[in-house]
């Protein structure tokens, strides 16, 4: 055996060849010496007559290599032919390997970042996000003045940096486009440890108020708009009407700390002097770089005195609603997608297990049938070594094909992630196959093949004819267990997927409180270049409203700073509202109230019912006195059962006092899944009531495709340089379900894979069972069993496995579903409807998988089989 392998690989070839050639030349030299030459002359003559030893060696070597390759080629072709003779086995095996390893590779590549590595910053493990948490904002922040004091702290921190935004910004030159800009402190990239891919970072000077406008652009923007020009530094860009110079380019894998989409970084130019005097107050998101080895708790302790200082500037009534937050940035960021990531990981492990079980079953079955064949061949005198090599090369070919399929699937999945992944999950937008995964998948493959293919196959060598016949039944028990396990795991997968889909369906059916049909929305941002003053913005809104109303087919127009279910960017504290001139001290902390600027037709356009009172009159728009409409929830909180109409409300610090003229029905305004926040509607105002964000909702009788261009045209005629985002209302809302939809799709894909694989597994084992027990079937039929009884007998196997699998699976699914709770919406983890549906479906699948083997069993001809002894 060993000699044969050595011969196969020609390991001794070189030295033997040298010996052979040397012998020849020595003999020739000896002959020449006998003819009278000197030893040197003889050797020279021998060399000359021999020719170039190098070339001879090369040529001979080539002959051998050719033979080796030819042998391997022959072996593979033979293996391929054998595999193609049993297409169902081969396809099933390759499919199992491809699905299992492919999806596992893709998911492992991706969740690694989410669950373990976090953000791609070199300083990632020392970065903390810090600030005060108040009902005012959904994540911690610091006021500009406070930040400039806090960042002096050097006991626990090496450095601080801050950001503002991101916010919409427009490129206002030849190809206007809406982008996302974030203001950052000049040291932002260095603190993260990130270096620009091209160009340079900002300097401290560029971060001073009034300095020349600079920008660092994203990799994608660099490629799209500048073709990846390496001489990017110094190029110009018109941003929101102002000349901006590009300083550098971000690396491709860069993610903003809040995971928001950011196209451009600009210096935030925080005016520290102004901030400290609290003349004008900005909110920044602050990050700190811990000194090496400093734990987060200690850092938080060192910031406490600063925090207490900050509290002294806050109205005592609100102090208890505010807290200090210091947390590792990676922890904060992983939180968002943690459950989803674990769910994906769990799903993919399930698929992998099912696939593995399939491959195991298939190989065991094949081995068993091989034993029979081998026994016969051995009895006829065939070389066992040869048979083993044949078997091994078949397995190798299967493994290679399966692996190729797996890589293809992984590539496709990752491409899908890159294009369709929702914002807010790290790493998905840049998903690429982790090279370690290639190794990992190869290793997994090798283990699987070894365990279930080659090791038992080595037993082949010692097989005899007698053994071969009994071989088949031995591993049946193991195979039954595997199939039941497969079914159980599929049940878990399918139930989880079904729960997510149910959630998605529910999200799609959430009652928004508005009528969304036939409504087209347009949103713009009024940049500083043309709309610096509130009066300009107000004029825009007025012109837009009138212009849109005149469009053909339009029944009503609403303009607001944001449309539901989105919240506006201006919530204020509930506890700051004075009713009829009186604040209610000691009023329980009430969270936030939304402030929404609207035109009078807003309620009619969106179908929001006015429970009491009326909408604004034209005279009340842009009036000196203030008028307001309360949402039902706000009215109930402030006034209880009392009629609010005619009373006044005034939030602290607002210039006007607002008389209540109406109460509107509740509308979802804080996203789809959260309960709506109390809302205060006020009309537009040309002095200070004209926000930069403007959204229009147009209800028309014409089709959206016809209305949209008209709207765009109207906005263009007012100002052609601002980009417009046009969507139907329904499309907007659907976009909010990006994440749940993504989760449901992905899990659905895995669940389907799992079920398909399990079905194939059931089919495979049953087919094998039938082929092994053909004689038994023949006997039974000869003894009087009907075809129906035989089919039933086969089916009963399938049903037993299904029952056991479903029971185990249901239990497992219950545990899994509990973990998914945070991803579910209005769907209980133990939702009985879902459970029942899944069980029925899976029982049907098992029956279907058993159909063909059952039929084959039923069509066995006893006369034929009994004859084969």
């Amino acid at each position, binding site marked *: 055996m060993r000699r044969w392998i050595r011969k196969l690989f020609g390991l001794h070839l070189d030295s*033997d*060849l040298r*010996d*052979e*050639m040397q*012998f*020849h030349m*020595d*003999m*020739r030299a000896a002959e020449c010496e006998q003819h009278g030459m000197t030893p040197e002359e003889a050797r020279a003559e021998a060399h000359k*007559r*021999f*020719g*170039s*030893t190098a*070339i*001879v060696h090369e*040529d*001979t070597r*080539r*002959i*051998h290599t050719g*033979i080796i390759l030819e042998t391997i080629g022959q072996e593979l072709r033979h293996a391929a032919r054998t595999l193609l003779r049993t297409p169902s086995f081969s396809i099933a095996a390759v499919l199992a390997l491809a699905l299992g390893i492919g999806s596992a590779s893709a998911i492992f590549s991706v969740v690694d970042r989410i669950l373990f590595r976090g953000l791609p910053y070199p300083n990632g493990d020392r970065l903390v996000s810090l600030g005060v948490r108040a009902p005012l904002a959904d994540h911690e922040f610091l006021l500009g003045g406070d930040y400039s004091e806090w960042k002096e702290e050097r006991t626990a921190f090496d450095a601080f940096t801050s950001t503002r935004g991101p916010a919409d910004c427009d490129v206002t030159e030849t190809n206007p486009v809406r982008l996302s800009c974030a203001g950052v402190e000049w040291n932002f990239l260095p603190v993260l440890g990130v270096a620009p891919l091209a160009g340079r970072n900002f300097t401290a000077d560029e971060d001073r108020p009034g300095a020349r406008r600079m920008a660092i652009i994203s990799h994608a923007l660099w490629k799209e708009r500048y073709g990846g020009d390496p001489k990017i530094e110094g190029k110009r860009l018109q941003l929101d009407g102002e000349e901006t110079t590009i300083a550098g380019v971000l690396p491709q894998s860069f993610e903003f700390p809040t995971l928001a989409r950011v196209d451009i970084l600009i210096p935030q130019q925080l005016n520290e002097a102004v901030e400290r005097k609290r003349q004008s107050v900005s909110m920044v998101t602050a990050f700190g770089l811990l000194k090496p080895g400093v734990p987060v708790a200690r850092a938080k302790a060192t910031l406490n005195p600063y925090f207490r200082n900050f509290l002294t500037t806050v109205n005592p009534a609100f102090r208890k609603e505010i807290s200090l937050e210091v947390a590792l940035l990676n922890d904060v960021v992983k939180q968002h997608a943690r459950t989803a990531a674990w769910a994906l990981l769990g799903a993919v492990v399930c698929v992998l297990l099912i696939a593995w079980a399939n491959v195991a079953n298939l190989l065991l079955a094949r081995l068993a049938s091989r034993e029979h064949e081998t026994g016969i061949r051995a009895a006829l005198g065939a070389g066992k070594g040869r048979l083993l090599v044949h078997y091994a090369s078949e397995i190798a070919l299967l493994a290679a094909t399966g692996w190729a399929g797996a890589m293809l699937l992984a590539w496709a999945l990752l491409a899908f992630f890159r294009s369709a992944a929702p914002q807010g999950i790290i790493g998905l937008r840049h998903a690429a196959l982790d090279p370690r995964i290639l190794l990992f998948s190869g290793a997994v493959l090798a283990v699987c093949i070894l365990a279930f293919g080659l090791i038992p196959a080595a037993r082949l060598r010692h097989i005899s004819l007698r053994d071969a016949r009994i071989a088949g039944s031995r591993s049946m028990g193991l195979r039954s267990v595997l199939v039941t396990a497969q079914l159980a795991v599929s049940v878990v997968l399918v139930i989880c997927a079904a729960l997510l889909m149910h959630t998605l369906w529910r999200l799609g059916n959430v009652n928004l409180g508005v009528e969304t049909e036939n409504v087209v929305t347009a949103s713009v941002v009024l940049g500083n270049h043309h709309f610096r003053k509130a009066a300009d913005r107000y004029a825009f809104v007025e012109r837009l409203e009138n212009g849109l109303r005149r469009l053909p087919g339009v029944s009503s127009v609403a303009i607001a700073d944001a449309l539901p279910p989105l919240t506006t960017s201006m919530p204020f504290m509930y506890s700051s509202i004075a009713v009829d001139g009186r604040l209610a001290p000691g009023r329980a902390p009430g969270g936030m109230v939304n402030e929404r600027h609207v035109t009078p037709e807003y309620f009619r356009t969106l179908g929001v019912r006015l429970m009491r009172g009326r909408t604004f009159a034209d005279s009340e728009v842009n009036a000196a006195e203030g008028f307001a409409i309360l949402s039902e929830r706000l009215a109930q909180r402030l006034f209880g059962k009392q009629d609010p109409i005619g009373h006044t409300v005034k939030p602290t610090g607002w210039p006007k006092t607002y008389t209540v003229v109406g109460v509107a029905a509740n509308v979802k305004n804080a996203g789809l899944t959260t309960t709506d926040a109390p809302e205060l509607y006020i009309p537009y105002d040309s002095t200070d009531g004209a926000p930069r964000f403007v959204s229009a909702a147009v209800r028309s009788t014409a089709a959206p495709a016809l209305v949209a261009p008209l709207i765009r045209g109207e906005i263009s005629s007012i100002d052609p340089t601002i980009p417009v985002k046009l969507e139907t209302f329904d499309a907007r809302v659907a976009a909010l379900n990006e994440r749940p939809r993504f989760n449901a799709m992905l899990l659905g894909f895995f669940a389907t894979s799992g079920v398909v694989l399990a079905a194939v597994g059931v089919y495979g084992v049953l087919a094998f069972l039938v082929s092994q027990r053909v004689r038994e079937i023949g006997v039974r039929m000869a003894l009087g069993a009907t075809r129906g009884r035989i089919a039933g007998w086969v089916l009963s196997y399938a049903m037993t496995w299904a029952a056991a699998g479903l029971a185990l699976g249901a239990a497992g699914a219950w545990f899994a579903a509990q973990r998914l709770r945070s991803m579910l919406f209005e769907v209980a983890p133990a939702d009985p409807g879902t459970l029942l549906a899944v069980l029925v479906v899976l029982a049907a699948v098992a029956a279907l998988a058993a159909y063909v083997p059952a039929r084959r069993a039923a069509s066995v001809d006893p006369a034929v089989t009994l004859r084969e002894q």
Partner: protein
Amino acid sequence: MSQSTAQSALDLLILKALERGRNHGFGITNHIQSASDGLLRIEEGSLYPALHRLEREKLIAGEWDVSENGRRARYYSLTPAGGKKLGEHETQWRSFSLGVAKVLEFV
């Protein structure tokens, strides 16, 4: 002469040389040169690729042994398949060279 014709000629010579009994590469070379009265002087090294190819094709069999002067040498002998091939080759070659001679003599 084309490569393959030269190759098959060399094969024929080697197989014929081994018909007399086993020999090593050196011995075969000498035999060819002396039996052809010096008319065929092949570059001696070129024998070896041919020998190895013939061995792979199972027309000759090689084994290591000790030579007359006590050195390790590789000896080749004709296999039954090789003997058959030699017969075919010889017949083909004879009719080929007869044909060439006839064409050359044709006026």
